[in-house]
């Protein structure tokens, strides 16, 4: 760890942290606002922005922030979490309209019933093949993530019992607050900070291929954190070559896709032009390159 602190730049570490956890920002913004709106429509007498953080978040968060946050989530959340995002947004719109325009029954009907029903119908129409596929592959969690939110969009479009609303919103925000560090920690700890490499070592021919993660290269040494956890200091004179290797942890675990969009891809990843990568270098499997066949000496005169 000390070696990492010494050699990994703080800026790089911070960048990795931000890139890995950018998905958490919409969650931190949207959930308190939704809960605050729920508190407002359920128990308006307890909706006090001066005393309640949820009420403050609901009352003070500008609309454009919510729009930007929604867009950010659309781009950075994996497809399997997007139905959940849609559910959150449907709740937010319905509760917002209910608190803002309580005297317009047609608008309330539209946002409280028609929109959720349409969203649920469209959602199931789009996701049904993927839900079937997830069940077929035994991926119950993926199936639930896709199947629950469309129905869930119908749930929270109005108030809950007034005397329960403060407790419920408080418990939910505490639960989210407790889960967030665990989730972000679990995600962040899997983020590769150092590039996976294979280093050919030996003079004059390669004697060994060291597999691990490149910590740094000094003017005398190449420092590699090997897969066994050992830190190897390789003299630069002995290093014959170095190749980057693919990171096995990044291979998706789900086989489900929605119209060709893998459920573990974010919209950004899906939009990026990608093509099948070539076979990894054999050195990434620890194979020492075979010596090239020596050229036949030409016959003398």
């Amino acid at each position, binding site marked *: 760890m000390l070696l990492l602190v010494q050699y990994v730049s703080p800026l790089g570490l911070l960048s990795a942290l931000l890139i890995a956890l950018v998905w958490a920002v919409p969650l931190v913004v949207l959930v308190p606002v939704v809960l605050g709106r729920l508190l407002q429509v359920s128990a308006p007498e307890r909706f006090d922005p001066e005393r309640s953080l949820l009420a403050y978040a609901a009352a003070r968060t500008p609309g454009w922030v919510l729009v930007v946050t929604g867009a950010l989530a659309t781009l950075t959340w994996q497809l399997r979490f997007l139905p959940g995002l849609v559910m959150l947004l449907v709740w937010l719109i319905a509760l917002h309209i209910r608190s803002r325009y*309580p005297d317009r029954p047609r608008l309330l009907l539209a946002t*409280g019933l028609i929109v959720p029903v349409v969203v649920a119908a469209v959602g199931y129409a789009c996701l049904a093949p993927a839900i079937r596929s997830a069940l077929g592959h035994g991926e119950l969690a993926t199936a639930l993530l896709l199947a629950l939110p469309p129905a*869930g969009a119908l749930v929270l479009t109005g108030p809950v019992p007034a005397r329960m609303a403060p407790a419920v919103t408080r418990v939910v925000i505490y639960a989210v607050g407790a*889960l967030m560090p665990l989730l972000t920690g679990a*995600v962040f700890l899997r983020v590769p900070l150092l590039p996976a490499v294979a280093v050919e070592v030996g003079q004059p021919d390669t004697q060994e291929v060291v597999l691990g993660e490149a910590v740094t290269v000094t003017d005398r040494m190449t420092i590699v954190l090997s897969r066994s956890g050992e830190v190897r200091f390789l003299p630069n004179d002995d290093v014959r070559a170095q190749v980057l290797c693919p990171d096995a942890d990044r*291979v998706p675990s789900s086989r489900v896709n929605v119209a060709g969009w893998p459920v573990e891809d974010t919209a950004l990843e899906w939009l990026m032009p990608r093509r099948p990568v*070539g076979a990894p270098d054999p050195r990434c499997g*620890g194979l020492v390159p075979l010596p090239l066949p020596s050229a036949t000496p030409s016959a003398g005169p």
Partner: protein
Amino acid sequence: MSEFEAPTGAPPQRPASPDRTARTRWLRLAALLVLLVVAAVTVVRVVSVTGPPSRDQLRERAGLTGKQELLVGVKDDQPGVSQLLENGAFAGFDIEIAYMIAEDLGFDAPRVRFLPIESEDRARRQARTPDGRYVTVDLVIASYSITDDRRRQGVVFSAPYLQTEQSVVTRADSDLRPTTFNDLAGRKVCTLATSTAERNLTAAGAKAHGRNRISQCIQELYDGKIDAVTTDAAILAGFVAPPPVEQAPPVNKLTNPKPLRHFDIGADGDELWGVNTGPDRAMRDLVNLSLEEARTGRNGKRWRAAFDRYLGYAQQYNDEQQVAVDRQPPPGPADKVEVRQWPWERFAWRHPNQPRTGLSPAVTRVRARRSSGC
């Protein structure tokens, strides 16, 4: 679940009854709580479960990472299946299957070392090196039939890669024309020791005796010491068919050869050949993955090319007996393997770095020269 009573401060146009309103709110609360609990459990499970291992992780678990050479135990005296040639190369259907599996395990042809293995040593994976030492090979691909008895003895088989059956060869000038095992009663019949045919012969009343090498049986048949040889049809077919013209002569030459005739004896049951992968489960999964990809087409037509080149060729000289089924047998339920893959790897697209669909003679020549194992 929607409820359209007006909130505080606004007179409703159509006021809902208080009971109904309260009931709706409680229902909404209950649904919300159920939804949140299920969602929380699901999200935690999604984050904590990493799914099946990837191919690289399986290689790591099988101890293949960093390994420089794959040792494969093969037969060296079975033409068309696995035979050691004078130029130091091995040739045959089993050899091509071994190359296919080895490549999927990350070992290109020059890193595959074939070692001759005797029938009795296949279960223990003990093969002999050219300097006389016995070593434990990584895989045994040696016309090894999958049987329950062998499994009970601790042999770990992969999914089957060839389906054939037992048959009999006699000399073409012999009066023996067997159509069942019972026709061999009282006759001197040779087969491989520890093979599945030995029990059938004994049960039929034949004078059975086992040899460690099928070429010894064939030589005894040529010399007139025995009446027939029985074992798997795919093995015998190579002795009936002439060697391919372009193939180098074998190291183990038989003397005084005679024309042979191949008979279908209507033996019950199939002989399914499998790979002895050793006790490591990850190794077995990797081999099964390779065989499944060969079966479903991701590996192109490598299995088909190997079949046509050796067993398909032998079929034309074995009219009365089918050499082997020309389709790769499906895996059993226990042989299915799940691995994490990139989406594009799940489709039967030709990999950019694997353009070939068959075996070119040039490739075979290069492989043969570099993988003599001697």
